[in-house]
């Protein structure tokens, strides 16, 4: 599945586009940055409720392709701008983590 497929989902508000052509490896759900640091897959889409500057730092270091913020969480404009600079996609949704991850999974199946 390409990143583009995820960014087109109606549940998501896209804050930073990243590279829409990027091929997504896995869906990853985790709110503890300490664990995400060790486990977030390269080229993955990471669904989390943890929205701070360190979320972007972890995404950047783990080569995450897209951060999806669930439960209405957002990132401040400065961090979103940095995500754009680094080519990491960021999108936000009001849905809970599982529901959003499931929608992404289903989009990848169809």
């Amino acid at each position, binding site marked *: 599945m390409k990143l583009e497929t995820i960014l087109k989902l109606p549940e998501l508000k896209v804050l930073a586009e990243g590279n829409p052509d990027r091929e997504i490896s896995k869906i990853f759900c985790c*709110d*503890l940055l*300490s664990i*995400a*640091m*060790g486990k977030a897959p390269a080229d993955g889409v990471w669904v989390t409720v943890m929205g*701070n500057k360190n979320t972007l730092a972890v995404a950047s*270091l*783990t*080569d995450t392709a897209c951060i999806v913020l669930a439960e209405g969480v957002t990132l401040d404009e400065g961090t979103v701008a940095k995500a754009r600079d680094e080519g990491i996609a960021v999108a936000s949704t009001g849905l809970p983590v599982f529901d959003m991850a499931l929608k992404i999974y289903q989009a990848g199946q169809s």
Partner: protein
Amino acid sequence: MGDQLIFTYIVDGDDFTRAGEASSSVKNKLKMLGVDSDVIRKVAIAMYEGEINMVIHADGGTITVSVSDDDITMVLSDSGPGIPDIEKAMQEGYSTAKEEVRSLGFGAGMGLPNMKRFTDEMNIDTVIGQGTTITMKVYL
């Protein structure tokens, strides 16, 4: 190449939100050097964990990264309180981080275990009340 490339960083102890700048910079430099992406990921993760530890526990410190033909060596030195029980600190889930740090998503007791997991060699040299130096190597 023969020659060693050396990068040095000073980690600011006060600014938690800036933690990660040194590892991010190293990541970009290694990318430009054409280092294998798996190696870069290991170095970046291990170094970021170390950086975060320096900010949480030791009021900052210095990091030196050297690139040779055989490996990438990271030396992280601080003048913090030292680690009283290394064996405990190496256990996943053991943490002495404050609540403020936990609310940011860190302090889950994964720092040192992650550093060990993502490197090929790791050595901790710590003196209570004087500081800690951690040396990590990732083979090329």
